[in-house]
């Protein structure tokens, strides 16, 4: 299981990047090719990066509460670029009540605080073979 390309992104203005950097490193240690966008990415910038880097997975980290606005826009932006096969996952402070709506919008899985990094890695490996 190697060579899956994943973009770890911080959409919106949120500066909390501890989780994003930990998950990026965990994916890398698990054999993924990881690209990290850095902070303050608009949904468009995330989608452009996903296209340029030709990734199979986009992992969005968000703790600011703007997830209901920003995450569906990433999914739509990927579709608009012909990348509807890209797996979109998210993690951060996201209330359980918001998860069904995000899933309906095309976010495949949402990982909330306390989830081991291995759970996210296994989820992606289960959905994509490298």
């Amino acid at each position, binding site marked *: 299981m190697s060579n899956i390309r994943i973009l770890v992104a911080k959409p919106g*203005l949120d500066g909390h990047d501890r989780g994003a950097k930990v998950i990026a490193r965990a994916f890398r240690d698990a054999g993924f090719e990881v690209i990290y966008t850095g902070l303050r990415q608009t949904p468009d910038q995330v989608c452009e990066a996903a296209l340029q880097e030709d990734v199979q997975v986009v992992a969005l980290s968000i703790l600011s509460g703007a997830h209901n*606005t920003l995450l569906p826009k990433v999914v739509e932006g990927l579709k608009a670029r012909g990348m509807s096969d890209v797996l979109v996952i998210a993690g951060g402070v996201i209330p359980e009540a918001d998860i069904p709506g995000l899933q309906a919008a095309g976010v495949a899985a949402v990982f909330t605080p306390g989830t081991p990094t291995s759970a996210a890695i296994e989820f992606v490996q289960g959905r994509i073979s490298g």
Partner: protein
Amino acid sequence: MSTDAKSRWERETLAPALAKSPERKAAFTTNSWIPADRLYTPTELPADYEFKLGFPGEYPFTRGIQPTMYRGRLWTMRQYAGFGSAEESNARYKFLLGQGQTGLSVAFDLPTQIGYDSDSPFAEGEVGKVGVAIDTLADMETLFDGIPLDKVSTSMTINAPATVLLAMYIAVGEKQGVPAKKLAGTVQNDILKEYAARGTYIYPPGPSMRLITDLFAYCAQAVPGWNTISISGYHIREAGSTAAQEVGFTLGNGIAYVEAAIKAGLPVDRFAPQLSFFFNAHNDVFEEVAKFRAARRLWARIMKERFGATNPKSWQLRFHTQTGGSTLTAQQPMNNVVRVALQAFSAVCGGTQSLHTNSMDEALALPSESSVQVALRTQQIIAYESGAAETVDPFGGSYYVEALTDQIEAGAQAYIEKIESMGGAVRAIEAGYLQREIQDAAYRYQREIESGERIIVGVNKFQVAEEPPANLLKVDPSLGVAQAAKIAAVKAQRDGQAVSTALAAIRTAALEGSNLMVPILAAVKAYATLQEICDVLRALWGEYEPGEAF
């Protein structure tokens, strides 16, 4: 006691006990991996009491900055709050003051913290989410409506646009008839930790440092009761650092600010008494108490010996503490009440000047009113029932805590020297050194949780099946639209020519090098928006471009 006596105990009593039942682990450490010995004894106590510990209210302030500490006055109970609109936040402040809170602490939303108005495309989805949305002086007037600014002190978590928000606060004071000389409070104004750990920077380091020293110079003369900066280890620790890194990196940043102000021509004793600090409190009570004591001792020596300050107020490290948000769990959130109590207890035993206690539901959403009340009650129980406020520095002389104080001081000193060797904090941050050290510690911590080496109750041990929590606070998603309408109304009513003139004066001051606080205050009073002011400086200075690594 001699070391021989301890050897005898180890031989005669300990060895047979260990032979019968070994200890739970091969090695024990503090929460931040400082080795913890089995037993500490009087040999750990400093040989020179007056040099290392001294007396409270006297150099080097290891035991506290005031002679009577909480016997004189309790710490300020200051809950960080703000969400949604200025009206909603104003109501929360009045609730908190009514519950016995003694100071305000304003949380701004991310667009405000990064200098965007609520109607900016960058603000989409973020308006009012992590704090209150402030676009113009009109919002600030609403935020403090009915709250007399000569009766409360207000801390504002604002960094890159600190000059603008302080100017708004001064303007609100004037409208209430409170002169700037009578205002009390704090602006965080600490850009270096934004680059290193928190992320709400706007401009590159050079001009950012100039804004900070302009604010120092202005307040030294016009707002003498104001803490002009809150040099923050809090976010460094939240991002994953150890306790020693928290102290070393924070004081390293502090040194950079002092040097910048001296370079800008300010005499050290003119601005240093207005510097303040902000630390975290995590779960290891002993390590945290030691950390606060070590930080005080180190800073006193830096200010006196390195910078030659002669005013004792310049030597005193005064600090705010917030309990550790990253230690809270989304699982079994009631357990967080206990974590917060331990953390707050350590802050009080460590001699904090003010304290925010987190609410149990903060790993899930913004805190609800009832959970904020429990958090505030936690402080009140520590103040009135725990006994921690009855004597000065209650852990002073603990063999263990004194040993840890020395170790954290030495560890922090080593980081300060490393930063110096790289050319100071600005260079070290630009080179990504602080960020790397913090990330390495964060990753190590996470791996320990996942391997089970580190137990987090309710997360990787003692789990239960849980229902999703109910009654979480939600911010109205239409707030962005409402704020945009408010901006439009202000723009329709204000004198457009006066705004243009005021903004041009900011540009001139930025170019000529005169103090920016003066034209920013004028622009705020003319109802220029936050973003209009920040955009003038963005156009001149550009924005910080971090090198991102993980």
